[in-house]
């Protein structure tokens, strides 16, 4: 058995939400011996520390040679911090995302970084991928929701933007984030997210409890509200119709005077695809 790891050189994102191509927007050729792209993980950091900014990007993978559509993944956010005169930042745990994309060897793949929240500082994001000479798991497709503001009113349900998955058979993982954009002294956001769809073959909503962003107290210099693992992940087995329209929702118990952003995302199997 042969398993290799390689790195896709970083892309620099802008301050909007435009897609930026890694590897200078050039394709990344898979090794001739590779029979599966097993998993990916991304590391990212702003070019310069910008006071109070969160950085949340999604990775998307495209190819003309392999059916990877859709593969878009929320990457662990670098969390916002509170600063008066100076500031630090902390990098969250690097998440690994299993994909099990089947290969023949030699295919070209394109890797992109896309900011999910407007107004973030330019970010450098690269991707590490692992390939294997054998098939190790069922191919997982990936779709993200839209990063949505929590608003600043507690106990109100906020509906997200509906998103679709096509050819779906089953949702195999649900995950999400709840991040400060601008931390507010001595308070935080506490709430939960859930998915609804008339195309789920299970009668219940799919809950995605996020890790609540940490709070901090600032008087003079800086303080870091930090979560060791700001992205929360739940392996599930949620059968769906082949075309599945999903609406995500958020409801808070605590809010601050500065709205946070919440995002849901999922991995799914396609019917007939192994």
């Amino acid at each position: 058995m042969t398993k290799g790891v390689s790195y896709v050189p970083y892309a620099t994102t802008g301050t909007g939400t435009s897609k930026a191509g890694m590897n200078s927007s050039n394709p990344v050729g898979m090794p001739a011996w590779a029979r599966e792209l097993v998993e990916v993980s991304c590391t990212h950091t702003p070019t310069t520390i910008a006071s109070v900014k969160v950085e949340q990007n999604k990775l998307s993978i495209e190819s003309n040679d392999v059916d990877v559509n859709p593969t878009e993944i929320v990457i662990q956010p670098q969390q916002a911090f509170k600063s008066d005169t100076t500031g630090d930042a902390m990098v969250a745990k690097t998440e690994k995302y299993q994909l099990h994309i089947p290969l023949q060897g030699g295919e070209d793949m394109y890797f992109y970084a896309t900011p999910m929240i407007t107004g973030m500082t330019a970010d450098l994001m690269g991707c590490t991928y692992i390939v294997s000479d054998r098939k190790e798991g069922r191919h997982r497709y990936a779709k993200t929701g839209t990063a949505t503001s929590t608003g600043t009113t507690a106990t109100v349900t906020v509906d997200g933007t509906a998103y679709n998955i096509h050819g779906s058979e089953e949702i195999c993982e649900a995950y999400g984030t709840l991040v400060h954009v601008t931390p507010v002294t001595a308070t935080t956001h506490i709430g939960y997210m859930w998915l609804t769809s008339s195309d789920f073959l299970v009668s219940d909503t799919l809950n995605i409890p996020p890790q609540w962003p940490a709070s901090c107290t600032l008087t003079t210099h800086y303080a870091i509200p930090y979560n060791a693992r700001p992205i929360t992940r739940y392996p599930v087995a949620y059968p769906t119709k082949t075309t599945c329209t999903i609406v995500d929702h958020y409801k808070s118990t605590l809010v601050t005077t500065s709205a946070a952003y919440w995002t849901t995302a999922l991995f799914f199997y396609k019917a007939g695809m192994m």
Partner: protein
Amino acid sequence: MSTKEVIGILYAVEASLGTGTTKTQINAAKSLVLPAWARSVVAVRPIYGLGTAVTEAESCWIEAFVESDDVAVQPFSMQCTPILSALTDNSADIDTIIPEWETYPINAPINGGEELKIWGQCGVANTAAPYLAMAVIVSNQPPTYKQLYGKTGTLTASAVATGEQAGTPYTIGGATNIKEVYGMVASTTVVTDISTSGYFKLTSNDFIDTKIPVKYGFAPIPGTDGTMTNGCPAYLKQARYKLEVQTNSQCTITDSIYFDTVNTTAGYWRTGLFFER
């Protein structure tokens, strides 16, 4: 033909545990109803945090409980990884660092429709009220593994001394096998330049093979640099250890902590375990 597996996530809605040490039922003091299609409670994940920043010289200790009049899940209590206190200098800036949440397997068989009651209790009173919610993972399949039960020891104040300190014995009933142990320490007040490290020890005359050692390191607490305006040594993740220790059906366990290094203020420590019946 076997039924295709469905795994879903239920949510016991967050509730404030208050600023005392009262055991509080979350989910608006209502039971969590399991879906009619569910045939096992696979695992739970306590979800917790502070509504405001951690207060200097306080650590947040939350114990979570899963109880039921319908399902034989008790005892099932879990000590959540503490949110450690912070050091402030003259600037009163306080970081808060929330550790990674843990997921605890239960593997309880159910018929569907039963009710669970989820509770939280703070081990020490906090100026900033913590909040607790719970993700409950269920499946439409019977459990794959044997059911687990959870018990914690007594939250014990630590003395400022290296060496061994004894805890309070605790008993697990109807037990056959301890499958996992864990433990954690938190200083009450962060101290500059001194870390806290060491290990826990569990002993019992009710371990079938008393030669099996149960000694395990705890996630250390680093010191801080006193020249900084603030410091928040943090646990990022709990240290958990899987093992197989067969026991008598009534098993009384004595826990103790051994400090290799200890800072100059007292704190608290607690052990916990998961066992089979």
